[in-house]
C-alpha cells in the first residue's frame, strides 16, 4: 500500500484563546475525493486555511508528501486552491488569471502558456469567457475559473472551498461532474469543504465530519456508509435532515 498523500496528526487550530478544532488526525490517500463536512460555524473553511498553509496551527502537524505547507514562504505551489468566491484577481481577465501561475513558475513561452490557458478554460467550459473580467462572470463561472487557475500548474492535489455554494442546481451538478472527471481521468486528489450532501454523496469517497460543540472530528469514512449506519445522533441528524428534505 502506498503512503498517504496528506497526513494530519493531532492538529489543534484556532487563534488567541479560541480553539476551533482540537487534536484532529486524518489521512488522505492519493486519487481520492475527500470531503470535510459539518454544519455552519464548525470550522470547515478555517481548517482548510490551515491545511493549505495560510495559517500556522496551535499544535500538531500537516504534511503533504512529507512537506509541511507554509504559504508565508513564496515558492511554486505544491497544490491548487479554489476559494469559495473563486477569488479571481479583479483587474485581470479570466485568461490572465489562469496564466498568472504559469508565467510566474514555468519557463514556458507565451504561446505555450496561451495554449494551456485555452485548454484549461475549455476544460471548465469557459473558453468563450477568456477575455472577460471577473466582474462580468456569474458566481458559478467564477468558481469554474478558480478551478482552472488552481489546475494551471497541473498539481496532483486540489482544495475546493464550498464549490457548490450559491450555485443553481444545474451548475452544481455540472461542477460535480467536472470534479469526478478530473479525479477519474487525471487521477487528481480533491479535498472538498462543503455542507452540500447531495454533492458529497455523488462525488465523495471518504469524509470527516466536524462538530462545533465538541470541537473535534465526530465521524469519518464513506459518507454513504455514515449516512446509513452511524449511531451518533449528531451524525444521524446531519444526514437525516437532508433525507427529510429530499423526501418532502
Amino acid at each position, binding site marked *: 500500500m502506498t503512503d498517504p498523500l496528506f497526513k494530519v496528526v493531532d492538529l489543534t487550530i484556532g487563534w488567541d484563546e479560541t480553539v476551533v478544532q482540537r487534536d484532529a488526525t486524518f489521512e488522505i490517500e492519493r486519487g481520492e475525493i475527500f470531503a470535510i463536512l459539518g454544519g455552519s460555524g464548525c470550522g470547515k473553511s478555517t481548517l482548510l486555511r490551515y491545511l493549505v498553509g495560510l495559517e500556522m496551527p496551535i499544535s500538531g502537524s500537516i504534511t503533504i508528501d512529507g512537506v509541511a505547507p507554509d504559504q508565508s514562504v513564496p515558492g511554486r505551489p505544491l497544490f491548487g486552491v479554489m476559494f469559495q468566491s473563486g477569488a479571481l484577481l479583479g483587474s485581470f481577465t479570466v485568461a490572465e488569471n489562469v496564466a498568472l501561475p504559469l508565467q510566474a513558475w514555468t519557463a514556458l513561452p507565451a504561446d505555450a502558456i496561451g495554449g494551456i490557458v485555452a485548454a484549461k478554460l475549455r476544460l471548465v467550459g469557459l473558453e468563450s469567457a477568456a477575455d472577460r473580467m471577473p466582474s462580468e462572470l456569474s458566481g458559478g463561472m467564477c468558481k469554474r475559473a478558480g478551478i482552472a487557475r488552481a489546475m494551471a500548474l*497541473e498539481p496532483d492535489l486540489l482544495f475546493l472551498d464550498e464549490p457548490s455554494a450559491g450555485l443553481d442546481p444545474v451548475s452544481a451538478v455540472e461542477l460535480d461532474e467536472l470534479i469526478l472527471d478530473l479525479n477519474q481521468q487525471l487521477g487528481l486528489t480533491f479535498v472538498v469543504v462543503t455542507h452540500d450532501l447531495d454533492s458529497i454523496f455523488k462525488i465523495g469517497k471518504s469524509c470527516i465530519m466536524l462538530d462545533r460543540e465538541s470541537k473535534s472530528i465526530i465521524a469519518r469514512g464513506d459518507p454513504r456508509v455514515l449516512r446509513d449506519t452511524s449511531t451518533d445522533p449528531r451524525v444521524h441528524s446531519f444526514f437525516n435532515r437532508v433525507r427529510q428534505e429530499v423526501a418532502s
Partner: protein
Amino acid sequence: MPSAFAIEHVQASTDRGEIRLRGTLRFAEAAPLWTELRRLETTASRGQTLDFEMSAVQRIDGGAMALLACLRAELHRRGVKSEFMAADAQVQRIIHLYGGDHAVRRLKRRRPLGTLDQLGRATVAILHELRLVLGFLGQLVVAGAGVLRSPRSANLRELPATMERSGADAVPVIIVINFLVGVAMAFQSAAQLKQFGANILVADLIGISICRELGPLMTAIVVCGRSGAAFAAELGFMQVNEEIDALRTMGFGPMRYLVLPRAVALIVVVPLLSLLADVAGVLGGLAVGVTTLDLTARAYLNQTMRVVSVWDVSSGIVKSVVFAFAVALIACQQGLATSGGAQGVGRRTTSTVVITMFTLILIDAVLTIFFRVAGL
C-alpha cells in the same frame, strides 16, 4: 534526468505525416515537449495531414495534453488536418477530456481598434457620461422639488453626520493648505513688489486673489478629494452590495434618501469652509508681509479691509456653492453608476476625483469670466 518522452516525425507520403509520441508526457517537461512539437508542426502546410500517433504513450497528464490539444487546434486553423490516433483507452479518455477529439472551432479574432476609432469611442463615452450627469441633475431637481412640497419626506437623519464629516473634519486641512497657499503667493509676489517699493500691495494681491479665486477653489478641491471620493465609494459599495436595490424595494428613492442629504450637507458646509480658507490665506500673506516686507500687522490688515470688497468675498461664496453642488452631483452620480465589484468601486472613485477636478476648474473659469463681463 533523462527525458520520459520521445518524439519522432515520420513522413508517410508527400501530403501525410505523423508525429509519433512515446513514453510519459508530463507537465514537468512541458518546455522541451513544446519546443520539439513546434519544430515538427512547421513541416506540414495547408491541405496536408499531420496526425499525432499515440499508441506508444503510456501516460499523459493534463498540462501535456493541453499543449497537444492547442497544437492540433492551431494546425486545423492553418488548414492542416490533424487527429490523435491509436491512443489506448486511458490516454483516449484524457484526449476526450481536453476536447482533442472534437471539431476545432474557428476563433473570432478581435480587430484592434484604430486611433480614429478609439477617439470616436472616447468622445461618445464622454458625451454619454455627460448625458447621464445631466439626467441625474434632472432627477435631483425633481427630488428636491418633491422635498420642498413635502419636507417630511426628506431624509434629514444623515444630514448632521454628513455635515460633520465633510465640514468640521476638514477644517484642519483647509486651514493648513490655504495658509500655505497665502504664504507661497506672498513670497512669489514680495520679491517683485519690493523692487518698486510697493510692499503694501501684497495685501491687495493676496486679499483679492484668495477671496475671489483661490480660497473657494482650494476648498472645493480638498472637499472633492475627501468627501467626493468618500461619497462615490460609499454609494458605489452600496450599489454593488445591492443595498440601493434594497432601499428601492422598501420604497426609498436613492435621490431623496441618499443624494439630497449629501448635496445639502456640502452646499451648507463648503461656503463656510471657504470663508475659513479666506481668513487662513490672508493670514498666510500677513505672516510673509510682517516677516519679510517690514509691514506691520495693523497696516497689512487695514490695507486688506480697504481693498477687499464685500462682493469679492461674496463672489467667492457664490462660487463655492456651485462647486459644492458640482462635487456632490458628480460624486453621487458616479457612485450610483457603479457596477462590477471592488474594482468597479475603485474605478468610479477615481473617475469622481478626475471629473470633479476638471469640472471645478471649468466652472471657476466660466464664473470668473461671467463676473468680469457682467461688471461684478
